[in-house]
């Protein structure tokens, strides 16, 4: 599964893109898997209130399913406009 990171999440993890093998069923499960990857991941995901997720480029809540997803992205709240 393709995982993408943006803004300070990308900086903390040290990459904007990685591929992971996971049996996670939801975004929340996936975050737990990712936190186990490294100290940097654990730190980046330490405050999940400050994080948003998109599954296949659609903004979703953390209890959303990732079944069949090709790409899951994590990022801070957006600051467009």
């Amino acid at each position: 599964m393709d995982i993408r990171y943006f803004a300070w999440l990308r900086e903390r993890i040290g990459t904007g893109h990685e591929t992971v093998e996971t049996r996670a069923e939801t975004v929340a499960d996936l975050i737990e898997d990712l936190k186990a990857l490294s100290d940097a991941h654990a730190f980046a995901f330490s405050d999940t209130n400050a994080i948003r997720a998109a599954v296949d480029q659609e903004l979703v809540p953390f209890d959303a399913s990732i079944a069949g997803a090709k790409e899951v992205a994590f990022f801070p709240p957006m600051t467009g406009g």
Partner: protein
Amino acid sequence: MSVDVSDRAFDPGAVLSAFSQRVDGSGAIVTFTGITRDVSEGDLQAMEIEHYPGMTEKALGDIRAQAMDRFRLIDAVIIHRYGRLSPGETIMMVATAAPHRRDAFEAADFLMDYLKSRAPFWKREITARGADWVAAKDEDEDALNRW
């Protein structure tokens, strides 16, 4: 061109000229232009805007479609830049055209509220002290409850 995501500079006046010439039957056009402004302490050197290619275009297209659906509009455009901008440069613009002024105003306001919190852009301010990500404001999220 209903949604345009680009790293190139643009002139909001040229956008309004082209838009006003193509929206036949409109009585009202509203535009909003966002400009890089020093929101920290007077020493902004540049604003860097990161985005999520692919999702950005999709999100802006969805927001535009919602506005077209919710208000009586003839047309609407959204333009948003990414990359490095100097203070005073145009970041983004929306334009709405409607038979009546209330729809044009409300749709532009709606587009801005959604774009602030639902389009995958992240701003970083570059100052003499370094680079800082701009924090999202609670009021921007709250603004969505107006609609």
